[in-house]
């Protein structure tokens, strides 16, 4: 079983402050950590490996200092670490990030791809599912339990507002995970010693055969204009009926709202 875990290095938000003028995070002097949800993804990867055998690779896209996140993952027991780093990735939005990660995963090969539910800084929860779309494979988000995994097949519980869905998927599959899934293990001493010495594999845009035009600022369809916490306003309407009726009503609503 080939398992790839996507991890993002994020500022430790326990310490992070917001610049009130620009509404952006003040990252100076704030320690970086592995996105907490991704710790659960790493643990899940290790547990799958313990069950099925195989190899766990952690993958991150980021600047050279993201290497620290990879070393931490090695100290927990993952086999391999890959840093996807290239000047041309700078300024990527979630679409461009997911494109680059998906090309890297294609390059590495994977049966199970694990992501956190969301990153605690960007918070979009888009990257995981977008990677799956680029790879044209199924994805299941918000996994709270892996019931069974074997060659070609996986059964998981997906967390819902009330209860959970029991889902089965073919492999390869991409899963995004929530905290309830497991308790991430502590690093081990042998792992820490290995992490100190481990060679981190570096991949560039050229290595993964990514198209320049889809990368970085240029490849990003979205631009950040302002970051703010939206007003909690819950206008909602529940549409009932047969599928056809619902679709018709929905199209009418959305057209009325000038969304279509």
């Amino acid at each position, binding site marked *: 079983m080939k398992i790839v875990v996507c991890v993002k290095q994020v500022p430790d938000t326990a310490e992070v402050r917001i610049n009130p003028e620009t509404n952006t995070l003040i990252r100076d002097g704030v320690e970086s950590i592995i996105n907490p949800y991704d710790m659960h993804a790493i643990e899940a990867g290790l547990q799958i490996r313990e069950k099925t055998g195989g190899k766990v690779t952690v993958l991150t896209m980021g600047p050279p200092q993201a290497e620290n996140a990879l070393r931490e993952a090695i100290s927990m027991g993952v086999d391999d670490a890959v840093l996807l780093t290239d000047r041309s990735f700078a300024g990527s939005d979630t679409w461009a990030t997911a494109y680059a990660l998906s090309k890297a995963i294609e390059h590495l090969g994977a049966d199970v791809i694990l992501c956190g539910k969301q990153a605690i800084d960007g918070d979009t929860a888009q990257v995981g599912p977008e990677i799956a779309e680029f790879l044209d494979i199924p994805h299941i988000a918000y996994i709270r339990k892996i019931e069974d995994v074997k060659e070609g097949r996986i059964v998981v519980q997906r967390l819902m507002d009330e209860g959970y869905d029991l889902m089965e998927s073919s492999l390869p599959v991409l899963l995004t995970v929530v905290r309830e899934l497991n308790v991430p293990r*502590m*690093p*081990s*001493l042998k792992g*820490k010693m290995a992490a100190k010495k481990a060679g981190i594999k570096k991949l560039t845009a050229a290595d993964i055969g990514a198209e320049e035009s889809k990368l970085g600022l240029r490849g990003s369809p979205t631009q950040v204009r302002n970051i703010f916490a939206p007003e909690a306003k819950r206008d909602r309407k529940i549409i009932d009926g047969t599928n056809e009726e619902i679709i018709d009503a929905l199209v009418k609503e959305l057209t009325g709202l000038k969304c279509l």
Partner: protein
Amino acid sequence: MDYLLTEEQIMIRDLARQIAEEKIVPVRAELDETGTFPHDIMKTLAQSDLFGLFIPEEYGGLGKGCLELAIAVEELSRACLGVSTTYAANALGTYPLLLFGSDEQKKRYLPDIAAGKKLVAFGLTEANAGSDAGGIQTTARLEGNEYVINGTKQWITNGGEAGIYTIIGITDRSKGPRGASAFVVEKGTPGFSFGKKENKMGIRASATTELIFDNCRVPKENIIGKEGMGFVVAMKTLDNSRTGVGSQGVGVAQGAFEEAVKFARQRVQFGHPVITFQAVQHMLADMGTSIEAARALVYAVSRFIDAGAKDVSKESAMAKVFATDVAMRVTTDAVQVMGGSGYMKEYPVEKMMRDAKILQIYEGTNQIQRNVIGQALIKEAAKANK
């Protein structure tokens, strides 16, 4: 203070501290209150390779020495002595095998110990043999290819929880102290059972029980070293492990000291934080100074042992007696600095004070340590005057 630790030693310290803060501190009060054995924490320590610290690499360990063990024990003790006693007694029980075990025995037992799959306990003390280990009554009689063990060991740490027991029994009473031998006995051996768990003043997360041997038969090969070497095995074992008790003292004192400083800065009386009163400052100054002195001694003796020193009885006794007396005084003073709050279970220092007391008692009381030091001084003086 900087003790010029190696990068690896710092790694060990940081990992033990991380486990202590994330896994032990949040549950220590409950473990203490309910007297619950810390199975989950032992699992974490095993996963983190900490049980393999002092086991040679050829048996799956990390091949480190007394100093590395002292560093790990100190960090665990800073959080909870009950947990660190469980961990340190495991090392105590392993030393007979490490120091005197045959290749066969090492191959059979050390890998499981290094992986934390099996805990170890050391059984010397009996109802009538505490400080006077020579008074043990447990016997081991050779019958064909087996030793038949009879007797009861008392107050054995990790009793019932450990899978492996190293014990001392009499093989030939006519030979006096040279008539004792060490054995390894596995849990589950017919005729080997456990008495009730003791209800203790402190280190309540650790398990302390009787070991009951009733015609318990073990293969002849389970003897550690040779017949008659029992007390040599026990004394060398204690020489090596005493620095570990010293580091328990350093750790619990450090934990209590930090609590006291934090509290004294926050608690306001007469319009000022109590730390601004000189009487309080002087107590804290003495606490901090004695902890640093204890740590320096424990590290120095550990390095001395790791360098291959032959006779370390005096030095390891000094490290144990000094650091554990410091622990008792510092934890008591931490309660004093914190006043009534220190006496309450809302704060951890009352537990630390209760816990610290054991350090002056087990692995040889501090009176016995002073006897050991005194005897060494006499021997040294006699040698110098020859």
